[in-house]
């Protein structure tokens, strides 16, 4: 049994947490855009699976990682268009259409895996760690924070970008008002439909990329259902975040830290049944959600917009 409290182990856990947080960040920030505009997209999981498969398949065929990411983004966009068509244009119940989209995405990715790759688990060479000069050489810290692959760095860069877009731009003001009071936005000439389409599409592109990180920026292979509920956790993270980008960061790190901890405990052979350890992060999510209360919760979340008669 190893020592859980040695410096190397602790930094090992932190480093793993930082990498594990990556898909949560992409998917969570994407879902944040959805929800800020009042759209509740439960289809994240399905979009991620489609993103994971398309990125993997393109990289497997071409060896070009950039093309892989683009493929995941495009597939995400298409799934986002389906979602917005159903929930924004046709005003269907968003929870149900999201679940439908997830089942569709998970199912289709499995089907494509079986037909295009004959169901064989293959591997590709994905994104490799980039060591940041000087910073990457600092003992422990360098290895933990500054020797990650490009997609990890990008995920963290996305947080300030989202903050700026949501809080410092005219577009962000429109997005937040559409989520809070679409009637008010509409009377000021803001197109509720356009903003919602835009946000669902941004969110879905990010969800597609989040899926791609599994198959080409982490374990670099494709398996059925490999995202394993990450999409749902991302949705929960947005509630946890209080609808703020930095809240998503905090939630993603907390969640992946607990996840890394349980993985490491299993590796170290600490005597906890692994099923219980694996439940830890999910229990944590449920417990935190109970205590979430925020004035910034979009008041019009999951309410389709209609110009009313009165």
């Amino acid at each position, binding site marked *: 049994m190893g020592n859980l409290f040695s410096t190397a182990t602790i930094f090992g856990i932190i480093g793993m947490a930082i990498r594990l947080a990556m898909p949560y960040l992409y998917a969570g920030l994407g879902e944040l855009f959805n929800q800020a505009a009042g759209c509740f997209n439960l289809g994240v999981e399905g979009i991620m699976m489609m993103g994971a498969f398309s990125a993997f398949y393109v990289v497997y065929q071409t060896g070009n990682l950039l093309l892989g990411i683009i493929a995941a983004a495009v597939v995400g966009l298409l799934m986002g268009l389906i979602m917005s068509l159903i929930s924004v244009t046709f005003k269907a119940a968003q929870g149900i259409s999201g679940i439908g989209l997830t089942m569709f995405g998970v199912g289709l990715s499995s089907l494509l895996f079986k037909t295009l790759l004959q169901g064989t688990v293959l591997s590709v060479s994905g994104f490799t760690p980039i060591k940041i000069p000087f910073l990457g050489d600092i003992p422990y810290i360098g290895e933990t924070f500054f020797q990650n692959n490009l997609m990890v760095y990008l995920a963290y860069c996305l947080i300030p970008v989202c903050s700026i877009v949501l809080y*410092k731009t005219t577009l962000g003001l429109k997005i937040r008002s559409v989520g809070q009071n679409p009637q008010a936005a509409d009377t000021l000439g803001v197109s509720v439909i356009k903003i919602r389409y835009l946000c669902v599409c941004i969110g879905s592109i990010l969800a597609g990329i989040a899926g791609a990180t599994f198959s080409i920026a982490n374990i670099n292979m494709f398996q059925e259902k490999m995202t394993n509920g990450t999409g749902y956790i991302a949705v929960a993270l947005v509630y946890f975040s209080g609808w703020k980008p930095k809240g998503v960061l905090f939630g993603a790190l907390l969640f992946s830290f607990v996840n890394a901890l349980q993985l490491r405990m299993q590796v170290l052979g600490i005597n906890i049944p692994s099923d219980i350890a694996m439940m830890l992060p999910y229990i944590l999510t449920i417990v935190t959600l109970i205590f979430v209360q925020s004035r*910034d919760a979009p008041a019009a979340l999951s309410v389709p917009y209609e*110009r009313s008669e009165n």
Partner: protein
Amino acid sequence: MPDKNNPAGSKQPMNRLQMIDITKQFPGVLANDHVNLDVSAGEILALLGENGAGKSTLMKQLYGLYQPDSGKILINEKECHFSSPTDAIHAGIGMIHQHFMLVSNLTVRENVALGLKSSKQPFLDLNTVEKKMMEICDTYNLKLNPRAFIWQLSVGEQQRVEIVKTLYRGADLLILDEPTAVLTPQEVDEFFLILKKMAQEKHLIIFISHKLNEVLAISDRVTILRDGRSVGQRENKNLTKTELAQMMVGRPVVLQYDREATVVGDVKLKIEDLWVKNDWNEDQVKGISLEIRSGEILGLAGVSGNGQRELAEALAGLRKCSKGHIEIEKKDMTKASPYERILAGQSYIPEERNKEGIVREFDIMENFILEDHDKIPYSKHLILNFSNIATATRKAVDDFSVKTPTLTTKVKNLSGGNIQKLILARELNRNPKILIAAQPTRGVDIGATEYIHRRLLKQRKEGTATLLISEDLDEIRALSDRIAVIFEGRIMGIVDGPTATAEKLGLMMAGAQEEIQI
């Protein structure tokens, strides 16, 4: 003030706006039938009509929210088409809606900036917005803190935000939809000064209202709508309330009621040092004591948000009291459930009739028996008896003249006035000992209002103890035997109903204590 960043900057000032032969058909309803309207710069036009007369529909077409089926909109004698609010805003039209269109968790200046291009596009430039906004505030004497969040503001302040927002967009024409509904008499006076100032600055103003006093006080001309048609356009010279009311309703309307002397009996409802918290766990009702006797109407006047809602909900058993007592006929009912209070003979007309008074998706019969569905004759051995239900509902619908095609019509398809009559029918059908009526005529047309008032007076004669909670001072004064004024959760004083003046009540509504308690 307008510049290249302001969409309204480049246009010609508006001198005249005409709507000619506007017709708009909704499924089953001809909302506007060849309606005409004409307003010029510097003029305040009142658009008068009952709920459902087509005022809002007409204005929504002017604002680009709906498109007319036929007819023309002319600005400075040139025809215009508005396919969205953006088009209307560009043409210099601004609308202040009855329900404010503000985003409550954004600040004042963010609400003003919403939807506009910024000088630092794509980034927000709130400081410039604030500077320009304050110039407008100075011109029109509007007091506002640009950095406050909307949820921190009073209703009067929120209305000022709406006005600034509209003027900031360079509006020449302002459409004001029932703007005084939420203001105290003093605030109304202040608001009228702002309107007159705007008219002096050559704005065009359309003032939608069904309050005759206000129409006579502020407008230069009046256009009257009834059942979707314009039935009259008058200069505001030698007009009388009776004349306007008759044009609006289509028949003579009684504006004064005979309140017969009644025998005031025992105390039916006693409230003692009651404290109630609001949704945010802050004290909202702070030590209210009231007694209401059989055969009297106690009016509770006050501007909305001063604890009326919490008090009404506490009395109905829908909200916990943190301190104090409620007694119904000398029996302590502080902790009684709504059902127990109903059994004790209390009826409740909630403020939010669409959310709390009815189930919108249910039909008329189902809504009528909501409270008594488990009792004979409506049901026996857990089975509903639809023929008894239909008979009773038919009688109530006829008694209370609820206008509906059938008894199985879904309540959501009725007009506000008819929904309120149905609620009244249900609540009064049980001949209550106590009636809590919260805003019973808000948003209800003048015909139905008159009817509801008569029923309340009839109930008074039959010995019901009524608590009438209303923001409409005319209503309170017309019906109440005594008037209590609530301000910030406390009773400022109780005055004799028939002799109370609007000025005196207005001062109390703004927080002035009544010295001599009657």
